[in-house]
């Protein structure tokens, strides 16, 4: 067997714990009331279009994109706007939100096809595809929620050669992308062709880690039927799902510091986004639902759910057997990059890839002791940084040095904090340093 590809520098091997692997995607029933956050993406907040008391249809536009780097927000259900209020997002801070009292049966907005027939015939041309994806409010579903149409629009002077599809799902526990690849393989293949047409490239490569053999096999079997698509099995290593790591692993190209994947001729999309693009372009369906993994060692029935956006976390947790008693933390996202949410009423957004329940003993952070200069953090950093140094610099507020040490290259994967034998809060401080340095650089430009 040939040696499997992976990125070269750094990376860690946390235990897999893919408890919900192989479980089918279940549809979660619509709750009585949903809370749709107005802004669910990175970029400018959208402008509100509805008011209290309005009757809305499923898929209706609720808020209109507020700029180029912004996205539309659609109604995930049919019902009446109960309130325009503020609601807690995953950080606990209150953000503008639309509360909708839902009706049991969906009345779909005109033009949306709700059948599940596979439609392989791509009628739109490249520009129209980007336009459609923008209209339907698509954002990166891997967790970063960056508006997809921005990534699709290749800037002048740059050329895209490859479309890289992220089916890696390197986060432990999460299986949402895996489940999607197994159940909607054909749709994903058509989705990839749509995106290839949108970006204007001839070849696409799907990267899948070798802990998902069934997905690799299934997609490899399908690939010959679709022109230009190939599958690249990868050696399991965290954080292979990071754009830069994935490009290094598949194409063996380095994205320059401060650069974007397009600088080395690649555009990266997550399989979740690919499936959403298929639905947006072929079925005219906006992004109103996503796959959410509910998992954790103490969860009764770890599962993958298809959840309408705006559903409170409690409803999703209840469907998986309720919140266990000894719960220490509920993490939105995976254990490596996710964040603990401060309450169970927090709604599912476009970026929620999973809900992970950690038991009390798992959730506690260990006591912080002195750095022993073992340089394990330097070895595991996939971005060639020195986390122990950046942490000290951030603690001492030495912003110039931090900038010199390229703190902004950090992808916040958390490998350093994971590996540290002294349990030092490396990423915590690096994140703080990053925000300070970003602020200074911004003020310089003015």
């Amino acid at each position, binding site marked *: 067997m040939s040696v499997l590809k992976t990125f070269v520098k750094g990376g860690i091997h946390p235990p897999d714990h893919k408890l919900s692997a192989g479980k089918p995607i279940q549809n979660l029933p619509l709750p009585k009331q949903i809370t749709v956050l107005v802004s669910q993406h990175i970029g400018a907040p959208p402008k509100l279009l509805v008011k209290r008391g309005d009757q809305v249809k499923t898929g209706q536009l609720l808020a209109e994109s507020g700029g180029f780097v912004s996205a539309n927000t659609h109604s995930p259900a049919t019902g009446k706007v109960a309130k325009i209020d*503020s609601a*807690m997002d995953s*950080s*606990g*801070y*209150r953000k503008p939100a639309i509360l909708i009292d839902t009706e049991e049966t969906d009345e779909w907005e005109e033009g949306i096809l709700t059948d599940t027939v596979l439609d392989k015939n791509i009628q739109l041309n490249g520009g129209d595809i980007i336009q459609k994806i923008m209209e339907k409010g698509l954002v990166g579903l891997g967790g970063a929620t960056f508006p997809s149409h921005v990534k699709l629009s290749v800037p002048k002077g740059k050329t895209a050669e490859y479309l890289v599809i992220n089916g890696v799902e390197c986060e432990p526990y999460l299986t949402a992308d895996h489940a999607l690849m197994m159940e909607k393989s054909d749709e994903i293949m058509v989705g990839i062709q749509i995106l290839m047409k949108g970006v204007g490239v001839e070849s696409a490569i799907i990267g899948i880690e070798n802990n998902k053999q069934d997905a690799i096999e299934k997609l490899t079997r399908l690939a010959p039927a679709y022109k230009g698509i190939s599958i690249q099995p990868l050696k399991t290593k965290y954080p292979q799902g990071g754009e830069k790591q994935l490009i290094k692993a598949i194409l063996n190209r380095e994205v320059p510091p401060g650069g974007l994947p397009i600088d080395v001729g690649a555009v990266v999309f997550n399989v979740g986004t690919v499936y959403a693009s298929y639905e947006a372009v072929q079925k005219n369906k906006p992004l109103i639902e996503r796959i959410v993994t509910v998992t954790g060692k103490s969860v009764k029935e770890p599962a993958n759910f298809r959840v309408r956006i705006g559903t409170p976390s409690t409803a999703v947790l209840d469907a998986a057997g309720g919140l266990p008693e000894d719960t220490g933390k509920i993490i939105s996202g995976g254990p490596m990059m996710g*964040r*603990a949410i*401060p*309450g169970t009423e927090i709604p599912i957004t476009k970026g929620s890839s999973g809900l992970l329940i950690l038991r009390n003993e798992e959730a*506690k*952070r260990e006591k*912080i002791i002195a750095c022993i200069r073992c340089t394990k953090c330097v070895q595991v950093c996939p971005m060639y940084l020195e986390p122990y140094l950046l942490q000290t610099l951030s603690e001492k507020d030495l912003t110039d040095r931090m900038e010199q040490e390229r703190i902004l290259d950090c992808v916040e994967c958390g490998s350093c904090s994971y590996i540290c034998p002294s349990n030092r*809060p490396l990423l*915590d*401080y690096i*994140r*703080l340093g990053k*925000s300070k340095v970003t602020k200074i650089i911004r003020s310089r430009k003015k």
Partner: protein
Amino acid sequence: MSNIILYTILSLSALGVLAAIILYFVARKFKVYEDPRIDQVEEALPAANCGGCGFAGCRNFAEALVRHEDISAFYCPVGGNNTMSAVAKLLGKTPVENDPLVAVVRCNGAYSHRPRTNIYDGAASCAIESSLYTGESGCPFGCLGHGDCEVSCNFDALYMNPETGLPMVVDDKCTACGACVKACPRDIIELRKKNPKDRKVFVSCINQEKGAVAKKNCEVACIGCGKCVKICPFDAITLENNLAYIDPFKCRLCRKCVPECPTNAILEVNFPPRKEKNVAQETTMKVRTPENTDTDTNK
């Protein structure tokens, strides 16, 4: 033997003289003229190097004072009016008179008033906790209690009270340099006008949420009811974003707003006890004031 010592002394002295001559000419050639007044001004400044003036230390501030004709925009909060007038006299410029200020903590969410709903076990820094989420209590505006302000204070004028989990300002030591204001990620600390006998009347809350939400998370939150605005005879109180604010320069310390506040969000500090009938209410309020806990037990 003695010859060796003699030659050594002679050759070293000759070298020394030669070096001295070279250095003399080099020093003359590369002499940097520095205004002697900079040294004098620096001497008059407090030498705290706190950065409260906005410059990188006292020397830097002294240079700026000498360089600029109009020094009305410059002020040393640590030295105060005395220092500024002394400096102005040295330079023959006109100083600006400012009211002395003092740091005031605008959060009264002690453990007893604001229940903690979760446990934070990350890095012990307010800046980090604030960037991650709302904090251990539900209040997204309240004090996080890790003492970033305490660390930033160069004058030992601010320390965390373990009983309340809030910072306390020692008014006598506070120089209003503003380091804590910058250090607090939630902008809780404000520099307010220093009144005689350190008396203060201020809204000890910066929560801009709607009243019901704010009150749910903290029983001493300002709920934005506007009662204080109505009763204030000097138009010193404004209500914006569900939050009352008392302008320290308009407030005449009449204290009429204090008993009016339904949530006891307005604090009065360092006042003699009230004589009127609402003594009972007064004492409970005194206990709730972090600055007064010590003096109360003494009395």
